[in-house]
């Protein structure tokens, strides 16, 4: 099954979605001139492959998401939110007690970057999934 892969530039992030392993990653900078156009390529690909991905998901399948962002602008924020919410919905299973999501999100931050931790906490509240925070050494 085909995976989604975009290599990073100085202003746009690396994006990788391994359907077979159920791993998704965004990393780097996200402050392109046309943020929406950039992420639309992912949304188009996602819509095209959604049924195929869904067919591989069992109640025990977990999606592993790595968010390794160095910096993203306010325009990117809405796109990330859309991506996370769509993935959350896709990997949700319904049992007798309601809907459960099978998604784990890892939020990476540079040592001492309190600001990035706060952004992650805000994001976690909004998508209603607890994030696991992972401290890394300076990424540049």
């Amino acid at each position, binding site marked *: 099954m085909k995976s989604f892969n975009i290599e990073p530039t100085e202003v746009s992030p690396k994006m990788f979605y391994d359907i077979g392993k159920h791993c998704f990653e965004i990393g780097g900078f996200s402050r392109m001139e046309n943020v*929406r156009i950039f992420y639309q390529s992912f949304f188009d690909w996602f819509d095209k492959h959604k049924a195929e991905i869904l067919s591989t998901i069992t109640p025990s399948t977990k999606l592993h998401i790595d968010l390794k962002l160095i910096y993203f602008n306010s325009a990117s924020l809405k796109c990330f939110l859309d991506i996370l*919410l769509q993935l959350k919905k896709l990997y949700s299973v319904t049992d007798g007690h309601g809907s459960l999501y099978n998604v784990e999100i890892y939020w990476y931050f540079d040592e001492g970057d309190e600001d*990035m931790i706060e952004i992650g906490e805000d994001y976690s509240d909004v998508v209603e999934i607890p994030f696991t925070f992972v401290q890394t050494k300076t990424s540049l």
Partner: protein
Amino acid sequence: MFRNRTKTIVSYVGDSIEYNQVNEILTSVWNTLEEKGLGISDIKIIYSILTEMLENAYRYSSLVEDSKDSLQCMVSDLGKNRFQIIVKNPITVSKAEKLKGKIDFVNSLSPIGLKKFYQHEIIKRKDDDHPGAGLGLIIIARKVNEPLMIEVQSLNNNISIVTIKALIKI
């Protein structure tokens, strides 16, 4: 003897700005701050504020074509871990009014109030296609240590020139 410790990190003056120039300014500021030995967290605070301010200026930069200095950007090191970002750009009169109102509002909020407002604005975006206008201002206000300053000058009946000044202590 008095010594002026202010050092200009970047200065741009023009009638408009292209996106590749925005990139050049941002890259130059990042590199200069790195050379000064600032930590990545501090660099990102300044970079983040400058990005939002420049992207806003870029959005309206083509409004005025017959002026050589309607778009300006200056990033300065004031010494003692204080930095100043000033961005001046044209904007429509109605948008200038709204911008001033928004800045007055974010200036009136406490850090906790800003955090709540930020989260409220993100949640709003879960359900609509609003691209993010206004959120950049909240992001800036959360990172500065003093109220944002805005000055609005009328250029003509349709266009104003706004100057926004942000002071950052790291």
